[in-house]
Structure formats: structure tokens, C-alpha cells
């Protein structure tokens, strides 16, 4: 497990800031490495915009939202809403992103390019799993 414990000015937290793959319930945060589909990676990262308000990335079946919070150096690009992969998150050097959830607790994401993805299952067709 790769953990990067970065100290951020003015912020006291015991939640580790992680740059490796991490899960929040049925949601997965996956680093998008530079050598994986580089053209799509830079196009999607360029499409990411800073958040002005907290946004709901997806609502779980228990009614609790997975929310992304507006923070300096954090940008988000949402894909079309019915896919497995929900969108692309970029975090600048020296910043980190907060993905919040009432039940699972917050996840802190360090610098890098990521996708946020839902778990799937094989039914009569492959479908998204809601937690």
C-alpha cells in the first residue's frame, strides 16, 4: 500500500493522503499513469475544471453521497453519467483532494491524475453496482 503522508499548512488531519489506488465503499480512485493511453489522459486532464461548489460524484443506495469538495489545485471532468468510470480528477503538486462520504469517511487524494470508478457486476449485461 503506497501512502504519502504530506503535511499541509493549516490543516490538521489524521486521514492519510494517498496517491495509489484506493477504495471508498464501492467507489474506486485509480491513478492514471502517464504511459496509459497518454493522448486520452492529457485530453481528459485538460478538460478538468476547478469546482466552485461541492459536487455529488454519485449517490449510494443508502442515500449517502460521495462528494468532491472545491479546493485549490483540484479539478474535475465528469464523463457521461451512465458509464462505469465517472470522471477524471486532477490534483496539482502541493494540493490534495477530499472525497467525502457520511458512512465511509473522507478519502484524501494526493497530487496526480486519477479516474473515479464504480464497482460493476455481471448480470444479464454488465451493470453498475450501487452501494
Amino acid at each position, binding site marked *: *500500500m*503506497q*501512502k504519502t503522508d504530506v503535511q499541509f499548512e493549516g490543516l490538521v488531519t489524521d486521514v*492519510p493522503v*494517498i496517491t*495509489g*489506488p*484506493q*477504495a*471508498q*465503499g464501492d467507489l*474506486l480512485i*485509480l491513478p*492514471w499513469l502517464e504511459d*496509459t*493511453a497518454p493522448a*486520452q489522459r492529457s485530453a481528459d486532464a485538460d478538460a478538468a475544471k476547478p469546482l466552485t461548489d461541492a459536487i455529488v460524484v454519485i*449517490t*449510494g*443506495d*443508502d*442515500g449517502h453521497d460521495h462528494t468532491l469538495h472545491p479546493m485549490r489545485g483540484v479539478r474535475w471532468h465528469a464523463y457521461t453519467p451512465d*458509464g*462505469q*468510470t465517472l470522471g477524471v480528477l486532477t490534483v496539482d503538486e502541493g494540493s490534495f483532494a477530499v472525497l467525502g*462520504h457520511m458512512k*465511509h*469517511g*473522507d*478519502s484524501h487524494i494526493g497530487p496526480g491524475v486519477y*479516474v473515479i*470508478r464504480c*464497482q*460493476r*457486476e*455481471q*448480470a*444479464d*449485461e*454488465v451493470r453498475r*453496482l*450501487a452501494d
Partner: protein
Amino acid sequence: VSYDGNISAEQMADILADREEWMRTARMTERCDRPAAEEAIRAVYHAAELEEPKIVLWFDSPFSGAYAAAMLSKLGKTRPQVRDEFQMGDIDAARLQLWEQLLVPLREDFDSSICDSLREQFIAQSRNLTWDEMTGWLDQIFGTPSDDQADWNVTKVLNGSLSIWYEAYWLCFYRNAFKIAEIPEPEKLTTLIEATKITGWWWPMRNIVVATDRPTILSVDSQGQLHNTGKPAIQYADGYSLWAWHGTRVTQDIIEGRLSAEDILRLPNAEVRRCAIEVRGWDWFIEDAGLQQVGPTVADPGNPGQFLTLYDVPEQVYEEPVRVLLCTNGTEERDGTRRRFGLTVPAEISDPIAAAAWGYGDDDHPIAVTPEMYAQLARRC
């Protein structure tokens, strides 16, 4: 006309607020204010230049209402339905004006994005599931005419009804389109919106109206699909009920978890079988159906303290052959049980860790999740 092909942020905010209001209203379970509803219905007749109905008959559910409407139209040919007349005349004229000037860009701007959610949640779900359920019962009562040209059948009776679940998307669309186009709102539209919002399903006929109340239970999941655990997803005051699991209509037996694995395997529809298993949980089904384990039970590398076991699933359960991965928590809950849940995966996977990694894959995206990557997962759960 001030519309220049663009909808301002302010106009969009107004449209979204109006849609929210429609959604809230379409989900209401409060009793109708019957005198107010009757008055609103009379105003619709007045706007359509029809003689006001002399009688408004009230029922608690659309099923009772459909039965009454069917009896009225079957017994007396003097009760033609007038639903279509509410949508002609001044609404048509205004629509024509809108069509010529603005309809195409308006549709592109907000019909698909704004009204689709009303269609998906209320027509595809509440209205269609109720319609199918009622058709089943009404066909049993009245018989299914073999001749489509018959002047009377159950479908024609149901087609004569109005309900917020069916009308919301177009009433919402035209109200907002006329507003943006600065075309005065036709009286027919105004009165129809008012009556539709404060009544359940209703059948307008010449001189008589069959009106029905709202449901007492209307339960949906986080995606707006009809869903309830252990109880009907829709229930009316007269007891008429409908059971659904994440948007699929199922029987009361299934929702109340009264089917054995053997009963479930005999259900004719794969989607319904899947729902019946999910209601009771895969962990129960694996035991009750005596599924065969594939390979060893392994510690879950992406989820410390949890164990993974893969099982074969009989081919007749889903249309597609699958296996099921059972995830079991190593630590006991406070009540002494271990939390377990099943995840279905393609049948060609024979390794529990590969099955868990597959669950985080996406065939439409270049990032693949390998078993090695899965093993590195940090987790908050």
C-alpha cells in the same frame, strides 16, 4: 420574441426549479384535496369549451378508477373520453407558433436534458409499471379482445386517463418553452397543469369524471427507480399495491423473501430471478441452492480481514453464465454474524482475486485493474 437561441443561466435556474417542483409533486403521498381537485378539473372542461362534468366519482386507486371507467364506457356508449380534446385548439396553435420559431433549438437546449429525467422516472417507472400491473388484472376481469379493431378494450380505457406521472414531462416542457419564447400560456395548458398536479389518475369523459387519489406509499431507490424492502413500492388507500426491486416489478412473495432457492430457479424470467436472489442475498442463495465452490477460499488482499470464495452458479439463473464471488468479513459484527455479500462475475473467471479485480474494471476505459493493482488498494469502508 426575445429568445435568441440561447437560454440564460437565470432562465435555466427557473426551469430546473420548476422541474424540481414537478418531481416533488409527482412523488407526493398526501391525500388529494378533493373539492379543490374537482374545481380544477371543471376549469379544464371550461377552457376546452366542454360542458362541465355533472358528476365526479372518486376512488382511492387508479385500479379502482380504471375499473369504474371501463364499466362506464362498456355499459354506456354515451360516455366518450374527452382527454384528447384538452390537448387541441389553443395549445395546438401555440405549439405551432413555437414549432415554427423556436422548438428545435429549445429541444436541443433543454428538452433532452431537463425532461428526460421526468420521462425516465415517472413514465418509464411509476406510470408504466402501474399500467402493466393494472392491465394484467383488467384483462382478467374483462377479457382481452382478439380483434384490435374492437371499439372497446382495456388499453383504450387506460389511454383515456391523465396522470401527473405521464403528463409531467410535456406540461413542464411547454410551460417553460412558452415562457422563454414569450408566447402567452394557453388557458388549456394552465388549467391542465393545475388539475394534473392536485389529482391522481383521472378519466375525463363527457359529463362525468372518474378521479382517483394519490398513493399512500411511493418508494424509490437512489436512482429514482421503484424499490422497497419488505413492503410495496406503491400502495393505495384501498390496498391496491405494487412490488418492485430496483425498478423491476416483482411479486409480493419475492419482496417478502418467502421463496426458496428451488422456487427462485423455477421463475421464468431471468431479471426477476436476479431480483429474488438479491432480496435474500447471495450468501443465503449459495447455501440454500448448495452451490459448488471453485478453487480455495483466499484472504482478500485489497480488503484486510476479509475472505473471498468463488462459486459456480447454475446456468439457468441468468441469461449469461456467471459465477458469484462471496466476500466474508473475518471479524464478527456486534450480533455475532459476519457481514457477507455476493458479487456476480463472468463465468470464465476461476480465481477469486481476479474476480474481485474484474469488479473494478471498465471495458470502455483504458485503465485496467490487474490483480496486482487490486492487492495494493487502500480502503475506507
